[in-house]
């Protein structure tokens, strides 16, 4: 077995008296695709912030490629919730990808044939060549996410962190973006932590599931974790997992407490209800009533 890219040992995170999760042991292998599930406020996004070095653990340790996690490690790619600058930003798809390569350097970017080739290759890898020279403000949501994945792939990441990257995309684009991530992690052999409230678009791609709820967690294959008795025990109340037509529906989860950093997500959900609720409502995981 190869060395894991990411290791969490006995990790816990608490905000004041509220413990989001504790005793978390997790190894992410190169090329492994792990979905992070759980209700709003269960600390999914905070887990990513911990790995990015933007949030300190309350206890335990996190190490990336054998060294303690640090802020701004460029071997970690990050694809956040879809929300990009509007018309006010003078950036084309290719410029956004180029920022992934050299956006942290000081000064004014000078033209470079080598960088241009690299950007072209990344754009081609994510299927964005067609709109390489289009302003990011005029790209559709699905196109923006493709370009962002291209940006995250710059610099050969060993780990890709995705925070609800499918939010407010329609079903076709959800599928396309998920397949893109799945293909790239196999080709480039990087680990993926994919935070989502709906596992269905990625159900047949993920290797394991990390389910956070009620201050605890479960890790395992989707078949091991997404079961009525497992989730009922985790939530401490009766939860039903229904499998139908290759989809998983979780019914009866008490919705997460509000007033928490992850609440952004709840906000987003309400906001995007028109387009979003439509496509995914039958498969909602995390139990909106």
């Amino acid at each position, binding site marked *: 077995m190869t060395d894991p890219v990411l290791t969490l040992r006995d990790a816990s995170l608490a905000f004041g008296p509220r413990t989001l999760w504790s005793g978390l042991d997790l190894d992410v292998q190169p090329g492994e695709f792990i979905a992070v599930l759980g209700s709003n406020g269960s600390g999914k996004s905070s887990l990513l912030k911990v790995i990015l070095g933007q949030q300190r653990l309350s206890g335990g340790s996190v190490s990336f490629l054998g060294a303690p996690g640090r802020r701004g490690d460029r071997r970690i790619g990050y694809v*956040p919730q879809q929300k*990009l600058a509007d018309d006010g930003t*003078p950036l084309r798809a290719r410029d956004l990808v180029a920022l992934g390569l050299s956006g942290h350097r000081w000064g*004014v970017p000078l033209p470079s044939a080598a960088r241009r080739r690299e950007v072209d290759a990344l754009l081609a890898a994510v299927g964005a060549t067609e709109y390489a020279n289009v302003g990011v403000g005029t790209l559709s949501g699905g196109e923006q996410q493709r370009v962002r994945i291209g940006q995250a792939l710059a610099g050969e990441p060993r780990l890709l962190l995705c925070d609800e990257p499918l939010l407010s995309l329609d079903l076709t684009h959800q599928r396309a973006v998920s397949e893109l991530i799945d293909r790239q992690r196999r080709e480039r052999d990087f680990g993926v932590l994919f935070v989502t409230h709906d596992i269905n678009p990625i159900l047949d791609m993920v290797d394991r599931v990390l389910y956070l709820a009620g201050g605890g967690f479960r890790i395992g294959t989707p078949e091991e974790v997404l079961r009525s008795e497992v989730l009922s025990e985790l939530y401490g109340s009766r939860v039903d997992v229904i499998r139908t037509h290759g989809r998983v529906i979780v019914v009866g989860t008490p919705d997460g407490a509000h007033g928490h950093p992850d609440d952004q997500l709840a906000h987003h959900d309400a906001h995007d209800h028109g387009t979003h609720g439509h496509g995914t409502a039958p498969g909602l995981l995390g139990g909106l009533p």
Partner: protein
Amino acid sequence: MNGDIWSEVFDFANYGELVVLLRNSIIAGAVLGVVGGLIGVFVMSRDMAFAVHGISELSFAGAAAGLLFGIGVVEGSIIGSLIASLIIGLLGSRARDRNSIIAVLMPFGLGLGILCLSLYPGRSANKFGLLTGQIVAVDDPRLNSLIAISIVVVLGLLLVWRPLTFASADSDVASARGVPVRALSIVFMLLLGLAVAVSVQIVGSLLVLSILVTPAAAALRLSSSPVVVPLLSTLFAVLSLVGGIMLALGASVPISPYVTTISFAIYLVCRLVSWRRTRRGLSGRVPLTTRTVMQ
């Protein structure tokens, strides 16, 4: 009657001699155009137009206080700008907080400025100049200080250009990639404060937006290239300022109406061009078919 008004607004008698006399103003306009055009791009991408307006009101208050207490108008306006931009930068990292902080600061600054001006015993021509712009006259020391501050702003911007672009477009990812987003935001606010302070001296605090926002907004209508937009924006700002000063030379009206009118006209033309482009379906996309043929 009509003729009188026109001769006050446009008077080109002895134009050649005036141009020589007002060489300083024209240089000042060109330098300011470069500053406004460049920083305006970031004002747009960071959605800070309202912040520019807020800072300029406090810059006005500072200038008025500088006049009253004999510190000097330039020094006062710089101090006012920097205080305002620091407050906005430190307290308003989220857009909603920022807007309310600006809305609270702005009338306070304006009121303070009016108080200082009414207490000031000197000539009243100076007073309105701070709000609505000077009647063209920039002496040598003033030109030198303007050029020095402008150099600081432009060099500062060039130094942080790329990480600031990243942070402005997508602060979450930039921060994950090791860009010091928070520090950059403070640096940007300080540079913006300096840019506002120099602009206030030429066009007046009420009209600063016409240099720091309108040219960049116009350029964004024509392009989304990170190279073309700053160049166009700078060109538009220089055109507005130098053009405005040249037109205002013979008139007894401040330069600001000329500057704002040219800058507004440029914006209208850019909107028209972009509207026609959209109607003709020029989006910059390369259809897949032609691409396969090319390969």
